[in-house]
């Protein structure tokens, strides 16, 4: 993994107002990690802009039964989530 400016960790469902705020705040060089209810964003197809690097926590994806809808994101385990927080200059938990 290369160095990351800001790692945005989002745990809110797409309906939550903080989800839209998070997606608006992402800049080139940032990375988005979807966890918990936020993995449902991958099932909506439309909420994610192209061109950002997206990861999603695999246990949360599997729990929601959406492993087939995750083309936009790379699935990661907790070890990789730790590594993302190491690589990032700054981490924001939305």
């Amino acid at each position, binding site marked *: 993994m290369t160095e990351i400016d800001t790692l945005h960790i989002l745990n809110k469902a797409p309906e939550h107002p903080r989800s839209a705020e998070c997606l608006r705040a992402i800049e080139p060089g940032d990375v988005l990690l979807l966890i918990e209810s936020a993995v449902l964003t991958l*099932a909506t*197809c439309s909420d994610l802009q192209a061109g950002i690097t997206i990861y999603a926590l695999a246990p949360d994806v599997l729990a929601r039964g959406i492993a087939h809808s995750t083309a936009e994101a790379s699935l990661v385990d907790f070890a990789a989530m730790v590594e993302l927080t190491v690589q990032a200059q700054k981490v924001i938990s939305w």
Partner: protein
Amino acid sequence: MGTLMVIDQPPYGTWAGREALDMAFSLAAFDQPVALLFTGAGVNWLRKSQETTGIGQKSVEKNLSAALIFGVEALYADATACARYGLVPDNMVTGVAMAENSAEVIRQHSHIAFAG
């Protein structure tokens, strides 16, 4: 007529939906008429193939599949929310009735309770 439990919160990330299911099953156990309406992010409770071992929670998929057998009168899913989340009969638990207009489903019941 009867009670409609409305679940609009997503599965596993919050507990409210799970506890609303318990309420519905409890009414059914006492032979009271009850139906469930899933809407918003809550429709994701209805997706097939939920594998929850990795998050340390029990899946509710079996409970939902058995809801009609245990006396819940209907499982309604808001059609707009299902479309938004890519939910179609093929990837949903069986026995779900699509509701084109959930406000109409709400009007048809005399007692409405939300999940938290």
